[in-house]
């Protein structure tokens, strides 16, 4: 379970974060949340799909790393074999939140960083220092905060992106039948993809509006990313053959 605490130099002076990739650090996941502003980088490595948050039923976009629960095909003993690792993976074990900041005005909020102290990455022995000896944020923490801010910005933008997909009924559920080299048959289900035909049939004005909002390009990126499913199947077959 998670045990989040507000990050502070007083409480976390000796804290270090392990940045290696591995199963012990929670990286052996089937997929991880992503957002439209990240699709360009994601589609170079992973298929982009959509799925529902179990608690709310709302849609989010996600990058697929494997074909079954708790199995990341990019992860091996030597690390995470891909040119790009999604921001929601790289943020671990930190979270960004917001608190009212009345000193800056009644409705103003300031960002605060929390850390999951039960996460295996958090320790005092090895990894990147979070605060330096003067109690100042290290370069590592500064770049992590940038990641968190990018995620926050990306998720805010993604709300409109998802709403547009729903408004124009561009999401459809799909099942993917996969036959592996050993003859075993599998079905990937529970995910949604962009209905390409419907996307092509949108009128010029709608396409223009989607473009202005920055939604159009990621839609086509998500469509194109489907080809990356082949990468996953190849990796799965390689495991069987190996």
């Amino acid at each position, binding site marked *: 379970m998670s045990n989040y605490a507000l990050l502070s130099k007083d409480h976390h002076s000796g804290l270090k974060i392990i940045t290696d990739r591995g199963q012990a650090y929670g990286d052996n996941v089937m997929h991880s949340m992503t957002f439209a502003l990240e699709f360009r980088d994601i589609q170079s490595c992973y298929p982009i799909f959509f799925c*529902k*948050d*179990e*608690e*709310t*039923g*709302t*849609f989010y976009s996600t990058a697929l790393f494997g074909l079954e629960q708790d199995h990341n095909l990019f992860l091996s003993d030597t690390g995470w074999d891909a040119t790009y690792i999604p921001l929601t993976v790289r943020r671990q074990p930190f979270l960004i939140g917001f608190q009212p900041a009345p000193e800056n005005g009644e409705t103003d909020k300031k960002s605060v960083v929390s850390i999951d102290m039960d996460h295996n990455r958090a320790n005092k022995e090895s990894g990147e220092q979070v605060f330096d000896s003067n109690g100042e944020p290290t370069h590592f923490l500064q770049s992590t905060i940038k990641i968190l801010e990018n995620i926050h910005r990306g998720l805010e933008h993604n709300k409109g992106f998802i709403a547009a997909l*729903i408004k124009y*009924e561009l*999401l*459809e*559920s799909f099942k993917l039948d996969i036959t592996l080299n050993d003859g075993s048959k599998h079905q990937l289900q529970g995910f*949604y993809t962009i209905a390409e035909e419907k996307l092509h049939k949108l009128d010029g004005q709608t396409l223009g509006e989607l473009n202005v909002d920055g939604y159009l390009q990621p839609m086509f990126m998500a469509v194109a990313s489907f080809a990356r499913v082949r990468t996953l199947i190849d990796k799965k077959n390689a495991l069987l053959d190996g």
Partner: protein
Amino acid sequence: MGLKQLNPMNDKIQNLVVVGGGTAGWLTAGVIASEHACSSGNPPDGFQLTLVESPDIATIGVGEGTWPSMRSTLLKMGISETDFFRECSASFKQGTLFTGWQTGAGNDTYTHPFTAPHGYAETNLAPHWQPQRDNINFADAVSPQSSLFSGKLAPKQISTPEYAFQVNYGYHLDAGKFAEFLRKHCVEKLGVVHIKANVTGVNTADNGDIASISTDSHGTVAGDLFIDCSGSRALLLGQHYKIPICDKNDILFNNSALAAQVPYNGDGDPIESCTLSTAQTAGWIWDIGLPTRRGIGHVYSSGHISQERAGDELLSYITATLGAKASAGVSLRKVEFSPGHRTKFWHKNCVAIGMSAGFIEPLEASALVLVELSAGMIAEQLPASRAVMDLVAKRFNEKFLYRWDRIIDFLKLHYILTHRKDTDYWRDNCRQGSIPDSLQELVTLWRHQSPWHRDSQHVDEMFPSASFQYVLYGMGFHTRPNQTVRRSELTEQKIADRLFQENAARTQQLMASMPTNRDLINKVYTYGFQKI
């Protein structure tokens, strides 16, 4: 004999007038307008649907329970299930829990869940369940649904798309809010014209049809087909055409009801998954859980119990379930009705839907589903011309007379299997003379063979044989073992064993994964259901 000359110009049926704006009126308007596009132009340019509603008469608001059919009815009307939940105080109804019907003892319960027995399309589990009837009750053996009742669990999750389910469901709803919700949808989305006026007269054409109705504030309203949704007053079919009522009080004794709306003790109190139907000394008490309140009422036979005693039984039920404080605060509303239906529903160019067509105790929530089915048939077979209207009317009358008979048979079945002898009411219910021959024949047959698809005479039978199985075996009915060794049942035994096991596994899985009704409805308020 011979060809009849028709006037194709003036003969088209394209101007429908619904009289009455309760749930029946608006549901009828919505079902028809979701099939036939209303045009903005006036006839003869296109189809038009007008609903005339009295601003002075409050709707009675009967029928707070629906069948699963309501899901497809709402979907077809283009209604968002999320909006429906948010605006109609709706909750999930997965069936009925009957208490006290068999012996009247404390542990005397059975369920009629909406989900058919597992594998029902091909395999009849009833004969295979019979040998183990002392170990597990029928509903639990064949369906996972009743297990959800006790946990007040929902039939789906927030990630399940709207109108889809893990186990089948209908709704409980606030009838007043539902009528208003449908009105808005019909007027704003489906092009139904809404006139608020009192009907003051009916104007007849030469052929005996209704040419128009006169109103107090809106002149005359002409139409090609008039749909009487004016409730028990039956302004058109009853008062104007004097179509008599076929009285069924000799079969179904209940003719009075005392109804109450009872608040929960706390906002977070659980919401029931089914209608609770608890037998009394001369009737039964319904208990329907909405998110906002419970609707509780006693429907009884005035020939067997006084209003005062019926009220006492209702108040003691409320005290027992919700506490003395809840029972002290309630006000009871009296409703009287003559159980029965019109001898025909469609006469000339007038058809009655809802209480104008008939009314019967709400034991299997047949009121709203009859509105859906009636409006659905009119929408589907809307006569193209006056000349064919009489043919459609004949079919309509045959179909719905048959359906009323089946409803009456099915409701009566709930009473005749009882072992209760504590009051005249229960003894009278088992009297041969009060049981229709059609039902008596079925029960006689079912002593030797369990209900099965062969018992359905029509493809669109209201009560499938599965419903009869749930009530029969829930009430402890015995179908005798076969006289001969049936080879078909021997080969089916393996399939049946597998189905029983699958059902047990599915029950476990649903019990572990379904949210409570309260939790899910709160999530619907916050996040809504997705359409896919």
